[in-house]
């Protein structure tokens, strides 16, 4: 019996530790930020998020994130398809490289883009001569966002394509459907859940991105200042309440997206 | 080990998986828990093992209540439906696991494992991994592993479900012999009546969480106590208006009573083949199905369809042929009661005619 008692004590200790860890690390911070943003009441909260610079930053972030997510949908679908369906030299290497943006520190990613597209680079000069600018303007932010969210759609599409029974496609051919028709009516619909959830994840990651963007955006208030950089600025200037208010706005948006992704995925699994 | 179960209940949320089950099992018996899938058999087995906690009721091993003992302390062996072999361990390590837990000496472990592998016919396979074995071999490993720590009670959850029909019969006989030889109290769960009848000393029929009947296979077949047991064991036809059959007219005095008639209660043939032709009713052969070792015959008696078997040695019948049908007995039941009724005419030989 002694061994049972002792194991119960251990079990109890382990359980409480884990629960405490969970609460301290996840639950408490969330409560903290929501209460901080509202602890002075609704008026300052409202003032903080209606500050023109604040909502312009949030709107800009949403706009650019949508663009980045759309670019990723196109690139990701294509690359996911090519990497699963075709056999060609270098396929394995490319497939491993997909995860590079996850493995690479985002600040390093930002620096890379800066070096590649920056003022004294080949691309930068070329763009200059053509009369438009990349770095410290919106295009650079989009490039940075596409870079850090690159793997999402690909990794969302690949398992679905692998699961897809080859015979479904063959059935479509034997029924007289053309290649294009088969793609759009048989293959594409089964890729769609992966594309959607990948795009949503990419979108929410782009919304939250900081490291890569801060280095290339130039951070001009009202023009190239995105939300997370705005929050960082507010923290630096000791306006915790303002930072918390915009954070809450962004957080709520992210939660909605995450909820939507879960819904899409659970519906897929439910089928 | 002597096992006693009193007032056992198990609820999963609103679902009553096990409902007030009581039974006693004598030492050394081999018991089959038989019933349809989802009827609560596995829940009972898992509660005996301590893998599931009863909502209420007592489980008593050797006169000692074991409800609060964890599975580790109950001295049981459990053979899982899919064997749950440790995938990353060899056959040897799988079988040795329970002994290693008990910190037995190395040479003791070795001796016991090797003798079990010998017993289960797995000698030479000790370095294989589970995925390198056939279904039957895995089952034997699971069996050897459960026996290694010398349990007092062996529990087997659908032990043959995942095995090819062909070797299943072979394995059944093997298991029965093995358990008899070891003399260990064993309980196995199955939804296959042939399996239960063939292997078990006693069968417990479980339906919808209730214990319907407990007894030897012959008892259960001969005198089923509930309608469910009667229809679950053996083959049968349900007849709504049994009073229309000759010899069962008395049944009319119990309105709402139905009858269950087994193929082996029915005899068919030409009228002159019967010793008591007066007890027979005329019938028409509707269909004949060849069943390999005999004919299955569908007979219409009036509007009632009956099913029976006929030996291949007798004259071959033709569909549409008129024959005589003798129904020896029927199993009658209504909402309150169940009983067996013999053919009244068959029992009365009417001596004046001779």
């Amino acid at each position, binding site marked *: 019996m002694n061994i049972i008692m002792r194991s119960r004590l251990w079990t109890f200790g382990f359980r409480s530790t884990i629960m405490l*860890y969970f609460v301290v690390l996840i639950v408490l911070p969330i409560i903290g930020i929501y209460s901080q943003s509202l602890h002075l009441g609704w008026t300052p909260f409202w003032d903080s998020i209606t500050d023109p610079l604040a909502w312009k930053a949030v709107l800009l972030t949403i706009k650019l994130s949508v663009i980045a997510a759309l670019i990723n949908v196109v690139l990701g679908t294509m690359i996911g398809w090519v990497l699963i369906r*075709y056999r060609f030299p270098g396929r394995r290497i490319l497939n491993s490289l997909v995860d590079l943006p996850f493995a690479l520190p985002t600040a*390093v990613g930002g620096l*890379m883009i800066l070096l590649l597209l920056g003022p004294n680079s080949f691309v930068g000069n070329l763009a200059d001569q053509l009369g438009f600018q990349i770095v410290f303007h919106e295009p650079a932010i989009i490039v940075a966002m596409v870079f850090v969210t690159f793997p999402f759609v690909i990794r969302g599409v690949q398992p679905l394509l692998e699961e897809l029974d080859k015979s479904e496609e063959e059935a479509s051919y034997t029924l007289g459907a053309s290649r294009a028709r088969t793609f759009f009516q048989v293959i594409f619909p089964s890729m769609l859940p992966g594309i959607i959830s990948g795009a949503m994840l990419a979108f929410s990651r782009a919304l939250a991105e900081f490291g890569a963007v801060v280095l290339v955006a130039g951070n001009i208030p009202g023009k190239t200042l995105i939300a997370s950089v705005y*929050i960082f600025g507010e923290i630096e200037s000791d306006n915790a309440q303002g930072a918390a208010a915009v954070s809450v706005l962004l957080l709520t948006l992210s939660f909605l997206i995450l909820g939507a992704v879960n819904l899409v995925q659970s519906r897929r699994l439910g089928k | 080990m002597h096992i006693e179960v009193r007032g056992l209940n198990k609820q999963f949320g609103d679902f009553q998986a096990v409902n007030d089950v009581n039974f006693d099992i004598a030492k050394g018996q081999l018991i089959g828990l038989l019933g349809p899938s989802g009827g609560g058999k596995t829940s009972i087995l898992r509660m005996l093992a301590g893998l599931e906690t009863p909502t209420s009721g007592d489980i008593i091993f050797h006169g000692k209540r074991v409800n609060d003992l964890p599975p*580790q302390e109950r001295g049981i062996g459990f053979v899982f439906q899919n064997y749950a072999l440790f995938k990353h361990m060899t056959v040897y390590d799988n079988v040795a696991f329970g002994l290693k837990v008990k910190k037995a000496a190395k040479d003791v472990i070795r001796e016991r494992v090797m003798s079990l592998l010998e017993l289960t016919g797995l000698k030479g396979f000790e370095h294989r991994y589970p995925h390198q074995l056939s279904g039957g071999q895995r089952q034997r490993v699971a069996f050897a592993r459960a026996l290694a720590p010398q349990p007092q009670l062996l529990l087997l959850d659908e032990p043959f479900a995942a095995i090819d029909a062909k070797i299943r019969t072979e394995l059944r006989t093997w298991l029965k012999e093995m358990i008899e030889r070891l003399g260990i109290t064993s309980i196995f769960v199955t939804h296959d009546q042939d399996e239960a009848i063939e292997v078990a000393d006693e069968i417990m029929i479980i339906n919808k969480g209730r214990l319907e009947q407990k007894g030897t296979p012959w008892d259960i077949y001969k005198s089923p106590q509930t309608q469910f047991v009667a229809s679950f064991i053996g083959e049968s036809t349900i007849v709504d208006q049994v009073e229309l059959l000759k010899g069962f007219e008395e049944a009319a005095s119990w309105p709402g009573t139905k009858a269950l008639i087994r193929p082996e209660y029915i005899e068919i043939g030409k009228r002159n083949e019967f010793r008591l032709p007066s007890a027979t009713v005329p019938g028409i052969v509707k269909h004949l199905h060849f069943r390999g070792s005999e004919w299955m015959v569908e007979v219409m008696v009036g509007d009632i369809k009956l099913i029976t078997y006929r030996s291949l040695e007798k004259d071959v019948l033709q569909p549409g042929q008129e024959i005589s049908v003798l129904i020896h007995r029927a199993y009658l039941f209504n909402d309150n009661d169940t009983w067996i009724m013999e053919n009244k005419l068959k029992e009365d030989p009417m001596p004046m005619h001779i």
Partner: protein
Amino acid sequence: MRRLWITLTYAVFLVLLIAPLVKIFTGSWGDGWSGFADALTRPESLHALMMTGIIVVVVTLLNTLFGVMLALYLVRGTWLGNRLKAFMNSIVDLPFAVSPVIGGLMIVLILGPSSALGTFFEEIGFKVVYALPGMILATLFVTFPLMVREVMPVLQEIGAQQEEAASTLGAYSWYTFWKVTWPSIRWGVIYGVVLTVARSLGEFGAVLVVSGNIMNKTQTATTLVYQDVENFNVSAASSVALVLAAFSVGLLLLMEWAKKRKEVH
């Protein structure tokens, strides 16, 4: 058609991934070997790399330990009610949805100098924010889901039967875990470790906010890169970045390897 798609894929990889990687290499070698070496042997570089190293080690250890246990409880723990389990399960992903800057802000808000907890720790002489503990906490927050999300599906897939079998054979939870569960989840855990190392090595936003980025004190490799860029010292930034990128590529190879092992077992 097929050729076109493959070419396009190669083009995207070349432009988006390979070119930047090459560029950072040439950038850091712009001033030759000596420039690269000088940039790396600056005291602040060495200190920053050391800070990053400490954070990676501590965070990986803690996150592995707690992540595996939490995954075990979330999958196997019957003592957690189903509803609580579902709630915790959905909340585990939270750090994925939160901008790292916001993650850092949360920690500053709770434990910063102006909060009750912060002043309490200050009084007992334990500095959390703008010091190593805060940075570790921030990185723990960011890496929290990685281990849990790697281990949970493996646990669900192997099912509880092998563990139940072990318990009927007399083994208690500790023995069962090491002899039965661990060998099955091992590769998932290793994969989770690699992901955690990669993420904690590269964490920037949350650490920047929490650390205050004080040179030679709370500066990490990534925040040093940031500072160098802000100071227009791009070649020095590239040198540190190259070291980080080299680690990342190494981790990527490890990830591939772990992934393969994970699939085999």
